[in-house]
């Protein structure tokens, strides 16, 4: 919690004859994050070279290229397929590769050959149609323009009529803002004619090699294209049928061979000498013991493993999240911004709690919440990768929060529920039912400002914590910590001054006390002093930071978007209801006739379109604004990010098993 998984740095060294055993064991455990060896930056391993792949890498690679080519023909991809109920044993996959691969490959090649040749012909015909296009204004057979012995033919586009100074026969007709010109001149005058034509802005166009008028030929080609597209559809159908048959085998092959290749090429990431190799990498601290003992037993103790010390702040330690299940989906939102660094506080849990609250606060409507919830469950069918699932989990939490806030606000598609809103009223004065005092705008604005104040203060405090934890004790550390404390002082100081001057709902009332200095009361003076001390604190950390002082106010005000965006969403919902129901449907229901029914249908369409749009806007508004408040207003106060993702060497097998 609040910290990533603790890592240990391991150095694994052995003689080269243990290479294969070590790699196999590491791959099986799927724990070891390899630190790639780079020759130009070989600290402590000078003189070592990148290793050579293990035998077999070549063969597996060529088979893999073949498999992926077949997968491409059948448009199968291992990432988009669910793991089968029954995993294929690797030995069986191996056998089947030997037995069946060639036949499957031939079949796929035949399919793709057929498909490609059809596609090429269609493309060729399309270009021909495009080339024929300028000549559609020329009514005669195109073949008549070719094969003259004593005449040269020029065809092209000219901006205006040209009269040539040589004996000629020309045809000209308007075409696409320009003119198609076809000129036939005696060969001996050809050069002269060409010069004159180019002077007149002539752009030559190739005369298509066709027998017939351009119009006829275009019709013929269009007809052919339709026919060929039919054929193409039939081929695609056959390909699809074969895909069903081969898909499981293909992904199993892909997985097996990919694993083989990854293992065989692991030495490319190790440092090697003539006789030995060294692998450097990271393992979660609690797994070191297991990995070490398994490696020892796999190599009969012929491997040297040592834990090396590292600097958790300076070294690029790979980061694996370590959060309770509830917060795991939110890791996706963190990765979109940036993974935390190894040494800093991981705010995932805070985001996982606050984000849904913000979302619900903005889009608090029972109806919308239910629709989003349903939408999330429906989309689960299509989004199968890890990130997609996490996104849907986040959406689920957000929509539940939406429903809860909808109950509080008493909102259902912009209508009110049978009870009055609890605490905050967002019902606008729209439509005939409007009554009461309207929405509590001021209340909401102040409340959201409070949210901002607390959220930002929390952010600054985390920065102080991070500073204390990540920076070595000394002057620099105290400066940073006091600088951050300065920001808090400035904010609360300004607040004190404001409270001493104005009365505001939901805020302490400090106005009305006797003035002590220049018309300002004691609280105000205290606030001013706090602000001043805060400014000194910020300034001693970094003078440039003082330029950012206005953000104290603007970032807090930025949180008022929670109120504003929410209210605009309510407004759209209520306006939609008002237009659709009160203005269109209700008057027609009063005395129903045929025209009325049609108008009612129009009203229903308006109702549906309005709410659909509003839901889309609501996801964007509620989601984006909530996450943006985190990224821009909250994270900028403390979060560094830029941690390296923990990517262990190995793979979870989906389709095969040993």
């Amino acid at each position, binding site marked *: 919690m609040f910290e990533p998984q603790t890592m240990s740095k391991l150095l694994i060294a052995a003689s080269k004859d243990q290479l294969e055993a070590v790699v196999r064991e590491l791959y099986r455990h799927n724990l070891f994050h390899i630190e790639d060896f780079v020759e130009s930056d070989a600290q402590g391993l000078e003189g070592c070279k990148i290793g050579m792949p293990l035998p077999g890498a070549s063969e597996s690679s060529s088979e893999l290229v073949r498999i992926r080519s077949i997968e491409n023909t059948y448009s199968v991809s291992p990432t988009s397929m669910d793991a089968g109920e029954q995993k294929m044993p690797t030995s069986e996959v191996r056998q089947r590769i030997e037995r069946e691969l060639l036949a499957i490959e031939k079949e796929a090649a035949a399919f793709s050959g057929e498909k490609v040749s059809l596609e090429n012909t269609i493309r060729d015909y399309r270009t021909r149609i495009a080339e024929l296009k300028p000549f559609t204004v020329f009514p005669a057979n195109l073949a008549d323009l070719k094969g003259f012995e004593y005449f040269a033919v020029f065809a092209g586009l000219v901006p205006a009529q040209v009269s040539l100074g040589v004996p000629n026969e020309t045809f000209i007709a308007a075409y696409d803002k320009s003119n198609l010109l076809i000129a036939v001149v005696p060969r001996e005058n050809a050069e002269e004619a060409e010069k004159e034509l180019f002077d007149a802005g002539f752009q030559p166009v190739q005369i298509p090699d066709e027998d017939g008028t351009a119009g006829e030929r275009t019709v013929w080609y269009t007809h052919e294209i339709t026919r060929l597209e039919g054929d193409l559809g039939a081929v695609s159908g056959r390909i699809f049928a074969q895909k069903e048959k081969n898909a499981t085998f293909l992904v199993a092959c892909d997985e097996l061979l990919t694993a083989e290749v990854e293992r065989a090429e692991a030495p490319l990431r190790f440092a090697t000498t003539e006789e030995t190799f060294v692998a450097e990498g990271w393992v979660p601290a609690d797994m070191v013991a297991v990995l070490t003992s398994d490696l020892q037993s796999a190599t009969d103790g012929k491997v040297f493993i040592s834990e090396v010390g590292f600097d958790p702040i300076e070294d690029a330690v790979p980061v694996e999240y370590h959060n309770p299940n509830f917060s795991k989906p939110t890791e996706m939102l963190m990765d*979109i*911004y940036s993974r935390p660094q190894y040494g800093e506080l991981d705010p995932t849990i805070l985001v996982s709690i606050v984000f849904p609250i913000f979302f619900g606060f903005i889009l608090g409507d029972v109806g919308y919440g239910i629709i989003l919830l349903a939408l999330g469950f429906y989309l689960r069918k299509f989004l199968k990768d890890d990130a997609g699932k996490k996104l849907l989990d986040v959406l689920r939490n957000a929509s539940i929060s939406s429903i809860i806030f909808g109950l509080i606000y008493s909102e259902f598609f912009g209508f009110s529920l049978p009870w009055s809103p609890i605490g905050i009223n967002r019902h606008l004065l729209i439509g005939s039912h409007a009554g009461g005092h*309207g*929405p509590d*705008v*001021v209340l909401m*604005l102040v409340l959201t400002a409070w949210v901002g104040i607390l959220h930002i203060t929390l952010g600054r405090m985390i920065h102080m914590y991070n500073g204390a934890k990540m920076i070595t004790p000394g002057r620099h550390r105290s400066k940073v910590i006091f600088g951050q404390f300065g920001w808090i002082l400035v904010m609360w100081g300004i607040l004190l001054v404001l409270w001493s001057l104005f009365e505001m709902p939901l805020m302490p009332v400090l106005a009305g006390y006797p003035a002590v200095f220049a018309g300002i009361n004691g609280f105000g003076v205290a606030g001013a002093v706090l602000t001043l001390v805060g400014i000194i604190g910020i300034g001693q950390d970094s003078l440039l930071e003082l330029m950012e002082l206005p953000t104290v106010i*603007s970032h807090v*005000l*930025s949180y*008022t*978007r929670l*109120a*504003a*965006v929410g*209210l*605009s969403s309510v407004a759209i919902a209520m306006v939609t209801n008002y237009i659709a129901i009160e203005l269109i449907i209700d008057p027609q229901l009063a005395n129903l006739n045929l025209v009325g029914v049609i108008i009612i249908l129009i009203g229903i369409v308006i109702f549906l379109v309005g709410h659909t749009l509003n839901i889309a806007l609501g996801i964007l508004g509620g989601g*984006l*604004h909530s*996450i*943006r408040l985190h*990224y*821009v207003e909250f994270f900028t106060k403390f979060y560094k990010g830029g941690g390296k993702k923990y990517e262990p060497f190995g793979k979870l097998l989906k389709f095969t098993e040993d």
Partner: protein
Amino acid sequence: MAVETMTIEIVEAAVATAAGFKAIGAGLAVGLTGMGTGLAQFGIGSAAVGATAENKEMFGLALLFTVIPETIVIFGLVVALLLLF
């Protein structure tokens, strides 16, 4: 009597005018800040669309950068709401 009606009418007119100015002010607040946001977003948007077209993973961050100037229009909206209610 006539004087009294006059006064009431004047007061009513004054109230209506005030409400009208408020509405105009609210409109200006949202409209002008909207333009400001638009101006700011146009460059960021071009870059964001470009980056996302090449690398879908950038979508989140690109969207985020694009919405940053929205703060301006939100301020406008807040001012408008305060004026109207």
